[in-house]
C-alpha cells in the first residue's frame, strides 16, 4: 500500500475550444491545469481552494479517471490514473455538489443500493450501511421516498451518502455544500469530520470556494487559481505568512472613484481590495507596517471618503488568497474564468 493517497507530477490539462460558427477552424486553447504537483498523505483531509474556474473540478475529474490529462502523471492509492484506471476505480468515489443527479423514479434506498452493487458490495451489507448513513445525515425517514420527491438539498444529501456508502479509500468531494442551506452544510461538515475520525487511513479531497469551510475542515489546503497551485500548506501555516502584516477591514462611505489599485500604490500597502455596496464600501487592507494606515486615511480625506468603521483582525485564508493573487476570490470570479 502506497503511503501517499494522491500524488501528481507536473499534471496539466489543456482544453481545445472551438470558436463560434464563423470561426470554426480557429481552435483556442484553455489551460485548465498547469504543472500541478501534489502529495497527499493517507488520512488527510485535503482542500483545494479557489474561485470558480480555477481548475478544481478539472483536477478531480482527472483523478477520478473521467478526464485524461494532457501532460504529467497522477497516482491514486499508488495506481496510475491513466494506465491503471481499472484498479483505481474500486478504491475511490466522488460526489459533486450543486446538482441533483440520480434516478428520480427510484426511491432513495434503491438509488443507493444500485450504486453499492456496482461496487460489488453484498446486498445485506449495503442495506445496513444505507440505513446507518441515511440516519446520520438526517434522511432516515426518507428511505422509501422517490428521489424525485426530495428537495434539492435532500437530494444532495442522498448523493453525499452515495459517495460514502462504498467506504472508499479516497473520496473526492467537489463543492459538497454548494447550494445547501446553513444547517444542511453544517450537517455535511460534521458528517465528513466524523467519517474521517472513525478510520485514520481514509483520505478525502475536498474542493471548495468557501474559505470558512476550508479553514474549518482541512488539514492542508492548496490554493489554486487559473490552473496553478499557488500555495499548499495547513491553514495555520498559510495564514502565518501574513502574521507580520497588519490586516484591516474598513467600512467607508462611497469611494468617490477611489480604487483599490490607487490605495495599493501607497507605500507599505501590500494589497487593497474594495467591494462597493449600497451606500458605502468595504475595504480589506494588508499593510506591511501598521503606520501605513496613516497614508490610507490621508487619501480617504483627500477624496472625501468617510471612515464608518475600522477594525484590525487576524489573517484569514481569504487574505492569503488576496496576497497570492492580488484580488479577492469574488473579484476573480466576477472577472470570469472558465473551468
Amino acid at each position, binding site marked *: 500500500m502506497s503511503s501517499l493517497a494522491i500524488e501528481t507530477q507536473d499534471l496539466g490539462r489543456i482544453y481545445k475550444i472551438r470558436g463560434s460558427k464563423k470561426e470554426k477552424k480557429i481552435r483556442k486553447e484553455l489551460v485548465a491545469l498547469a504543472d500541478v504537483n501534489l502529495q497527499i498523505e493517507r488520512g488527510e483531509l485535503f482542500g483545494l481552494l479557489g474561485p470558480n474556474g480555477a481548475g478544481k473540478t478539472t483536477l478531480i475529474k482527472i483523478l477520478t479517471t473521467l478526464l485524461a490529462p494532457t501532460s504529467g502523471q497522477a497516482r491514486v492509492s499508488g495506481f496510475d490514473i491513466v494506465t491503471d484506471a481499472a484498479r483505481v476505480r474500486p478504491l475511490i*468515489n466522488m460526489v459533486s455538489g450543486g446538482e441533483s443527479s440520480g434516478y428520480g423514479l427510484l426511491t432513495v434506498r434503491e438509488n443507493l443500493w444500485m450504486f453499492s452493487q456496482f461496487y460489488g458490495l453484498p446486498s445485506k*451489507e449495503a442495506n445496513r450501511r444505507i440505513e446507518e448513513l441515511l440516519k446520520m445525515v438526517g434522511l432516515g425517514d426518507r428511505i422509501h421516498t422517490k428521489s424525485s420527491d426530495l428537495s434539492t438539498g435532500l437530494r444532495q444529501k442522498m448523493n453525499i451518502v452515495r459517495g460514502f456508502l462504498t467506504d472508499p479509500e479516497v473520496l473526492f468531494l467537489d463543492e459538497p455544500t454548494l447550494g445547501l442551506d446553513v444547517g444542511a452544510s453544517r450537517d455535511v461538515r460534521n458528517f465528513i469530520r466524523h467519517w474521517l475520525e472513525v478510520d485514520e487511513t481514509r483520505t478525502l479531497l475536498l474542493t471548495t470556494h468557501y474559505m470558512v469551510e476550508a479553514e474549518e475542515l482541512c488539514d492542508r489546503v492548496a490554493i489554486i487559481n487559473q490552473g496553478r497551485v499557488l500555495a499548499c500548506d495547513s491553514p495555520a501555516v498559510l495564514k502565518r505568512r501574513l502574521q507580520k502584516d497588519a490586516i484591516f477591514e474598513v467600512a467607508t462611505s462611497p469611494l468617490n472613484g477611489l480604487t483599490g489599485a490607487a490605495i495599493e500604490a501607497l507605500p507599505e500597502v501590500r494589497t487593497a481590495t474594495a467591494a462597493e455596496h449600497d451606500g458605502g464600501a468595504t475595504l480589506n487592507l494588508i499593510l506591511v507596517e501598521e503606520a501605513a494606515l496613516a497614508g490610507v486615511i490621508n487619501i480617504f480625506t483627500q477624496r472625501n471618503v468617510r471612515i464608518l468603521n475600522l477594525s484590525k483582525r487576524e489573517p484569514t485564508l481569504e487574505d492569503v488568497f488576496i496576497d497570492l493573487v492580488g484580488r479577492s476570490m469574488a473579484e476573480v470570479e466576477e472577472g470570469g474564468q472558465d473551468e
Partner: protein
Amino acid sequence: MTTTTRNPLPASRWKESWRSFRIATWLGWQIESNWTDPFLFAIYSIVKPLAGAAILVVMYGIISGGNFEDPLFPYIYLGNAFYIYVGAVMTGVSWAVIDDREHYKTLKYMYAAPIRIPAYLLGRGVARFLTGSFSVIVTIVAGVLFLHVPLNPLQADWLLFFLALFLGIVMLAMLGLLLGGISLLIVNHSWFIGEAVAGALYLFSGAIFPLEVLPAWLRPVGFAMPMTYWLELLRRSLVGNVAQAFPTLATFSNLELLGILLGLSVVFGVISVFVFRRCDHLARERGLIDMTTHY
C-alpha cells in the same frame, strides 16, 4: 459509521462485466416499467406498433388491390413487425448514454465506478428488448388473427427462429453499442440516434420489400447489412414456404444464411467494440463524459 471493511481486490473482468450487466438490466427495467398509468403503457406498447402496422397494411391494400393472399403481404407484415427490434434494441443501448448524461446526470458516476461500461450499456438495453418483444408479439398475433398472416405455430421451425432471433438481438445490441460510442462524442442532437439509424436502414434491409425493388447500385447496402439476413431467417422460420417465394436470398440455405448472419454479426461486433473504445477514449480526452447541453 462503524464499518471499516474496504472493498476487496478488483473483481475479474468477467465478474465485473456480469455485475455491470445485471444491475444495469435491473435499472433499465425500473426505468422502462415506470408506468405510472397502465393505460398509457397499453397505448404505447399495443396501439403504437399496431397503428404502424395498420398504415403499412392500408398502403399495401391500396397498391395490391386488396390481394392479401400474395406472399408479399406476410413478407412485408413480418418484416415490419420484427423491425421493431431494430429501433428498440439499438436505441435501448445507445440511449442510456444520453439518458444518464443529460437527464439523470449519473454517467460520470458510472464512469468513476468499477464497472464495464459496454456491459452496463448492453444491460440497459435489455428492458427495451423486452418491451419491444411485447410490441412484436402483439403485432404478429394481430396479423395472424385478423389479417390471415399464414403463420402456423405447428409448422414453424422454432429452433431456427430462436437461434436467428438470439443472434440478431446480439448483433443489434452491438450496433447499439457503436451508436452509444458515437453518442458520447455528439453532445448535441443525439437523442434519437438509434431510431434515426433504424429508420435510415429500414429501406435497405429488405424489411418491407425484397432488395430487387431497390436500384441495382443501392442493393449492395442491403446485402452488406446483417439485418437483411436476420429478417429473412425469421421469416423462413415462421412462414418458410412464403418467404422463399422471393428470389433475393432464395439460393441460400438456412444454414448458409445463419453462417452469413453470424459472420456479419462478428464483423459488425468487432467494429462496434473498436468504435466504442475509440469514442470512449476520445470522450475522456475531450472531457465529454459529464457534458450536459441543458436542452
